[in-house]
C-alpha cells in the first residue's frame, strides 16, 4: 500500500500512509488510539475506500469495492468486534462468508474445510453450538478459520489480544506465527509493545495518520519504539503561575464490573480545586466506566466518591445519581456525544436549555417558556461560535461533531460547575475547536474548578494536566506530577511500568 489517504469530513484519518507486508511474515502495526491503524486496515480489507493511494498484491493493483471483493483477492480481516451471527453455529457462520451452491451439501463441505484448517492450526472448535454461547477466544478462532476457508492468504487481525486473557493471547499469537510460517502474510494491529517484540518479524509504527517507520522490533529497544509511537514532541506546559487549592474530589477504591474480570479495580485519586487531573491511557481500559461512575450514571461495586465543600464539610456522593451530582456542582462531558450528551432529534435550543430547566430558569413546572429558551440558546450559540445553526429550533443532529461538542461544553460550563469531568473532549475535532475547548478547561481551572480530564490523547493530557494518573486494565498504575516524562507515561500505558 502506498500513499493512502482517507478523510472523514474535515478529519484526515490517513495521510500518505504506506505499508509493505511480505509473504510469510507477521507484520505488526503499532500506534496510539486514533493513529490510523484500523482505518488503514479497513482500507486494505475493502471496508473503506481510500481517497487516494494504491494497493498492490504481488505487483497487481487492486481496488476493492467491498469486503467480499477483498476476500476474493485473498485479504481477510478479523475485526476487534467479531462479525459473527450469535445464533448460528460455527459451520453456518463460516458458510455465510463463503457460500456454497447447495445448502445441505455446503454444510458438509464447510464442516470438512473447518476441520482441516482447525486441525492444521491445532484449534478445537465446537461446531454445533450457537457461537453466542462460546467463549470469546473460541469465537475468535472461528473468525480466523472463517477467513481461511474463504481463501484468505493475507490475514489482518485488529487488536486480537485486547479481548483475551494473557495465556490465551500468547497462544493466539503463536498460532498466527505458525500461520505465517506456512506462507501466509499476517498483519497484527496492536498497541501492545510486548506483543510486537515477542511475535512479530517487522513492525510499522503509525502516528496521527502517518506511517512513521518500518523496522525490525528486535533491533530496537522498547524505549525507542515507545518514542516512535507516542512521538517526542515536547508539549509546552500551558500553566501560568498558579497554585491549586485543597482536595475537592476524593475517589477511594472504586471497583466496577464482575469480580473475575473487573472493568475498574481499586481506583483511587483525588483532585484539588484549581487543578486539572489528567487520566491517560489506551481506550477501553475502564475510562468510560470511570466517567459514568463519576457522573453518577453507574454505581460502583465498591469504593466511595466524596466531595469536600468550601466550608470544610465532606459530602458522600457515591450513591447520589446524576441529579445529585449536578446539584453538587458537577458538570460532565462524556466521550459518546451522540449517545450520552445530546438527543439528536431534539432541537439545538432544547438540548442547550435542558441544563437549566430544572432550576426554573425557563418558567415554573407547568410552563416552559420557548421564547426565553430561544434567546438564551441563541446567545450561547453565538458566544461558543457554534457553526451551522440556521435556526436554534433545528435538530441538533444536523450539526457536525465539532460544533455539537462546542455546544455541549458551552452547556456544561454554563452550569457554573465547581467540578468538571470531561472524557476525550477533543476527539474528532479540528485544531480550532480543540483549542477552544482546551482554553475553556484551563480558564475553569484558573477559576478554582476541579477538573478531571480523561483522555486517550496523550498530547492533550500532557499539555493541560497538573497531575497525571495512568490507567491500564481498570487500574491507576502510576501517577505523575507535571511536567511529566512522556516516555515514563508511555511505558506505563503499554504495561511496561
Amino acid at each position, binding site marked *: 500500500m502506498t500513499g493512502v489517504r482517507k478523510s472523514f469530513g474535515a478529519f484526515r484519518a490517513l495521510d500518505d500512509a504506506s505499508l509493505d507486508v511480505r509473504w510469510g511474515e507477521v507484520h505488526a502495526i503499532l500506534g496510539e488510539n486514533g493513529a490510523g491503524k484500523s482505518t488503514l486496515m479497513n482500507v486494505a480489507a475493502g471496508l473503506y475506500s481510500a481517497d487516494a493511494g494504491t494497493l498492490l498484491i504481488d505487483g497487481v493493483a487492486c481496488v476493492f469495492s467491498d469486503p467480499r471483493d477483498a476476500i476474493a483477492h485473498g485479504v481477510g480481516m478479523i475485526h476487534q468486534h467479531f462479525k459473527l451471527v450469535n445464533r448460528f453455529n460455527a459451520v453456518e457462520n463460516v458458510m455465510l462468508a463463503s457460500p456454497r451452491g447447495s445448502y445441505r451439501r455446503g454444510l458438509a463441505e464447510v464442516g470438512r474445510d473447518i476441520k482441516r484448517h482447525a486441525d492444521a492450526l491445532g484449534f478445537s472448535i465446537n461446531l454445533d453450538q450457537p457461537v453466542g454461547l462460546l467463549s470469546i477466544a473460541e469465537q475468535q478462532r472461528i473468525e480466523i478459520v472463517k477467513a481461511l476457508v474463504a481463501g484468505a492468504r493475507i490475514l489482518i487481525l485488529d487488536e486480537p489480544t485486547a479481548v483475551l486473557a494473557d495465556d490465551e493471547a500468547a497462544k493466539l499469537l503463536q498460532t498466527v506465527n505458525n500461520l505465517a510460517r506456512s506462507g501466509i502474510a499476517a498483519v497484527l494491529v496492536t498497541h501492545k509493545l510486548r506483543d510486537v517484540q515477542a511475535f512479530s518479524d517487522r513492525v510499522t509504527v503509525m502516528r496521527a495518520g502517518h506511517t512513521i517507520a518500518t523496522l525490525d522490533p528486535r533491533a530496537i529497544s522498547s524505549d525507542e519504539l515507545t518514542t516512535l509511537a507516542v512521538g517526542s514532541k515536547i508539549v509546552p506546559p500551558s500553566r501560568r503561575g498558579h497554585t491549586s487549592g485543597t482536595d475537592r474530589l476524593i475517589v477511594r477504591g472504586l471497583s466496577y464490573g464482575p469480580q473475575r474480570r473487573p472493568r475498574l479495580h481499586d481506583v483511587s485519586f483525588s483532585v484539588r480545586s484549581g487543578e486539572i487531573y489528567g487520566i491517560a491511557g489506551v481506550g477501553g481500559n475502564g475510562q468510560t466506566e470511570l466517567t459514568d461512575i463519576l*457522573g*453518577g*450514571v453507574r454505581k460502583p461495586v465498591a469504593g466511595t466518591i466524596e466531595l469536600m465543600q468550601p466550608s470544610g464539610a465532606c459530602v458522600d456522593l457515591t450513591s447520589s*445519581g*446524576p*441529579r*445529585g*451530582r*449536578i446539584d453538587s456542582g458537577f458538570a*460532565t462531558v*462524556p466521550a459518546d456525544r451522540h*449517545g*450520552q*450528551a*445530546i*438527543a*439528536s*432529534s*431534539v432541537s439545538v435550543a*432544547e438540548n442547550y*436549555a*435542558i*441544563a437549566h*430547566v*430544572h432550576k426554573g430558569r425557563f*418558567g*415554573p*413546572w*407547568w*410552563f*416552559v417558556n420557548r421564547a426565553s429558551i430561544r434567546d438564551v440558546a441563541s446567545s450561547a450559540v453565538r458566544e461558543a461560535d457554534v457553526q451551522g445553526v440556521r435556526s436554534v429550533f433545528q435538530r441538533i443532529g444536523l450539526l457536525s461533531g465539532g460544533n455539537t461538542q462546542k455546544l455541549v461544553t458551552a452547556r456544561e460550563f454554563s452550569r457554573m460547575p465547581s467540578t468538571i469531568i470531561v472524557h476525550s473532549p477533543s476527539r474528532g475535532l479540528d485544531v480550532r475547536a480543540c483549542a477552544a475547548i482546551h482554553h475553556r478547561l484551563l480558564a475553569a481551572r484558573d477559576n478554582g474548578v476541579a477538573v478531571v480530564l480523561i483522555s486517550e490523547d496523550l498530547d492533550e493530557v500532557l499539555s493541560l494536566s497538573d497531575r497525571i494518573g495512568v490507567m491500564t486494565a481498570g487500574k491507576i498504575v502510576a501517577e505523575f506530577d507535571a511536567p511529566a516524562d512522556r516516555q515514563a507515561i508511555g511505558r506505563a500505558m503499554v504495561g511496561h511500568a
Partner: protein
Amino acid sequence: MPFWAGGLISLSAVLLGLIISAAILALAGVAPSSLLTEFVSAVADPQSLRAVLNQSAPLILVGIAASIAFRARFWNLGLEGQMIMGGIAATAISLGKVGSDDARIGLMALAALVAGMAWVAIPLVLKVLLRINEIITTLLLNYVAQYALYDLLFGAWKDPADSFPHAAPFSAAERLPVIAGWLQYGMVVALVIVLLAFWLLQVSRAGFYLRFIHANAVMADHMGVQTVRIVGTVVLASGAVAGLAGFVIPSGMEGRLTQGFFEGYGFSGVLIAFLAQSNPLAAGIVAVLVATLFVVGQSLQIFYQIPFAMVQLIQAIIVMCVAGADFFVRHRLILQR
C-alpha cells in the same frame, strides 16, 4: 426534502388506503357510488353528524391515551382493559348508589379514572421493577379485564329486568347530559382532555423532558432527568384517560354497561396515535375522521350486512399504507441498474 412533502406522502397514503378499501367493499357488494353517498351524508346530515360527534368522544379519549403513553415510549396496548376497568368502576358507583344523585356522575367519572390508572399501574410496575415487556403485559391484561367483565355481567350484575348479560340501566342522573339538544357532554370532556394533553406534552416541564426521554433516554438519564418519575406519571395519565373512555361509552352512549362496549377501541386508539404521530391536537382531528368511519361502518352494517370487522379491516389497510409510506418519508429512492 421540504417539510410539506412528508405530509403530502402521508396524505396520499391515506387516500390509497381508502381506495383499496373501496375496492374491497365493492367486492363485498357495496357500489363505490353508494359508499361515497354514505360518507357524504355522514357529515352532511345533522342527525348522523350528531352520531359522528357522539362517536368521536371515546375515540378522542383512547387516541389521547395512546398518544401520551407512546410519547414516553411505553407501548400501552391495554387501552381496552383500562376502558373495561373504568366502565366496571363507574357502574359499581351507579349500582351501589354511592353519593347523592348530584354528585353521582362526577364520582362515576372519578372512579373510572382511578380504575384505568390502577389497571395500567400493573404493567408499569412490572416494567420498571422487573423490565417485563409492557407490550405483552398490557395486551394480556385486556383478556383478564374482559373475563372479569363477563363474570360480572353473566353473574352478579346481570340485569334482573330482562336477564340479558348487561348491567341495569343508569338513572337519568347517571347519564352524561346533552347540551342544547345535540352536543354530547362526552365531547366536552374529550376536548378538555385534548387541551390538557396538549399542555402536558407541549407546554409543561414534564413534556420538555419527555421529548428527551423519547429521543434518547440514556442522555436524559445523564442530564439528571428523573426518567422513572416522569414516565410513571405519564403512563398513569394514559391509563386514567382510557378509563375515562370506558365511562363515556356506557354513560354517554349506551346507558348501561354492556358486554361489548370496548370492542375495537384499543386498536383504534393505537391507530389514531400512530396517524397523529402522538400529537394531541392531531389526535383529536384524526379521531373525528375515524368516528366518521365508525358511523359509516354502522350504516353499512345495517343496509348492506357488512360486518363491523370490515371497519377494522379498513383501519388496518390505512395503517399499513401510512406505515409503508413512512419508508418514502425517511429514505430517498435512488434507482440503480
